[in-house]
């Protein structure tokens, strides 16, 4: 069964609740969007993530009230290198959306969304621990899985699978 091609035209996608909500707030916040394999991905401007999350959480028509996951991808050696990925779920509407921000490799940092969802705490600490992405405004940003004195960030692509010996 061949996969249908992804839809990337914002005009076609503007009826999706999450995109409509962000477009109604700030057109500039959306860098691009993609609908692929029944999943919606919105790539946001790095500075817009916290406000966009708060906005989507309070959406009266389709509140994305639950933060499922925060994680990261490393596209080394491409720039922007890091992609922080947020998965939101709307418990009343049973709808999911994926938000992304792209970060450059030199001191990657993005606003923390712990003010919107306190549950982002552990997830952001994990991303910080394993990728070295900093979250501005995080109440407690330190390593969570690796030992405190560990050097390097293991899930980066330039970190060997066997570790340094």
């Amino acid at each position, binding site marked *: *069964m*061949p*996969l249908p091609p*992804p839809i990337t035209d914002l005009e076609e996608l503007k009826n999706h609740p999450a995109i409509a909500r962000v477009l109604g707030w700030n057109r500039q916040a959306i860098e691009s969007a993609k609908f*692929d*394999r*029944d*999943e919606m*991905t919105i790539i946001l401007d790095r500075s817009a993530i916290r406000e966009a999350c708060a906005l989507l959480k309070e959406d009266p028509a389709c509140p994305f*009230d*639950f*933060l*499922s*996951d925060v*994680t990261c*991808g*490393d596209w080394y050696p491409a720039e922007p290198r890091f992609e922080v*990925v947020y*998965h939101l779920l709307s*418990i009343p509407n*049973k709808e*999911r959306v*994926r938000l992304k921000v792209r970060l450059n490799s030199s001191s990657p940092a993005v606003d923390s969304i712990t003010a919107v*969802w*306190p*549950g*982002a*705490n*552990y*997830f952001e600490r*994990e991303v910080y621990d*394993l990728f070295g992405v*900093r979250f501005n405004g995080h109440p407690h*940003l*330190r*390593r*969570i*899985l*690796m*030992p*405190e*004195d560990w*050097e390097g960030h*293991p*899930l980066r692509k330039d*970190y060997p*699978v066997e570790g340094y010996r």
Partner: protein
Amino acid sequence: MAHLTPTPVLEPAQDRTMILNMGPQHPSTHGVLRVLLEIDGENIVRLMPDIGYLHTGIEKTCEAKFYQQVVPLTDRIDYLCPLTNNLCYVLAVEKLLGLEIPPKAQWLRVLLNELTRINSHLVWLGTHALDIGAMTVFLYCFREREEILKIFEMVSGQRMMTSYFRVGGIALEPPLGFFDRVRDFAGYFPEKVDEYEDLLTGNPIWMMRTKGVARITAEDAIALGATGPTLRGSGVDIDLRRDMPYSSYEKFQFKVPVSQEGDVFARYICRVQELRESIGIVRQALDGMPEGPIKADAPGVVLPDRERMKTQMESLIYHFKIITEGFAVPAGEVYQAVESPRGEMGYYIVSDGTAKPYRVHMRSACFANLQTLSKMCEGKLIADVVAAIGSIDIVLGEIDR
């Protein structure tokens, strides 16, 4: 490194408080969870979980394996529900590939997943009751769990690390006698649940230790990312099996138990009710099991039939290629979530078009659920910490990955 904050040593905030270290080796932490408690007499002022003792870097390892080689790794994340993790992973890869799975394989997956849920809940119930001081329940639960493990051994050759599902279907036809054995089990299991409930549900000691203890509101549970019985125990009616069905769950009838109180007892009742619902799903799967193949028709992705390999050169070539080179997965990304016994288990897989996943991230239910522990315990008595830890049903392998 300069940007690291100093090692956290929890300092007592006031003169009258002291720091108590619990774990990582502590029988009631179900693994290697360390909890730092700041206490004022018997009351908890602050609680801080410390995790990572079981971190094995599974996500990193996945990036170095072929897609089919990741399946055994997913077993080892959550050793109480390996089949749930197998399922979530293969569903995600199948979504990336756009594969259609034959009905029989889907129903078998549902059947085995519900047995896994029962298995996991039995371990939880036994150890949770043991923590609170009810020894008998533990022995009873493990008696029934043994039968489930024997069923798993029968079908996959392993009691715990099953690795039974494959991308595109399941590994083998279930052996002769498998369905009869499951039917026997489904026949007598509801009585056993009555037995556990006789020992606990109306028991005054059990009620005193669990009712009103470690309460959490629905708003807090949602804000902290709790899922599964931890969330449903606070009155939020969500179950991914019913609300965002996968693997033919929409064809099964079952209720989603929800309790309103948000305390240890509410979570206990939710899980015990789930035991009954799960055995109902098992029975429906047995009665309506469709006939047909157990693997998708996808040469190049699904290993060919052994018999055909002896006569057809193409099958032999495909077999050799899959084993030595893996199979390429079209570039893209998916997030697939399933309702594991502990909540939302999600796999986020990124493919760059090669035969190895570019990124595999496991959204672990316990990892998020553990964040609720501070909220449940702060301001409460130290004796209830053990009940609270038991009630969120943590598996450290899944938290630390």
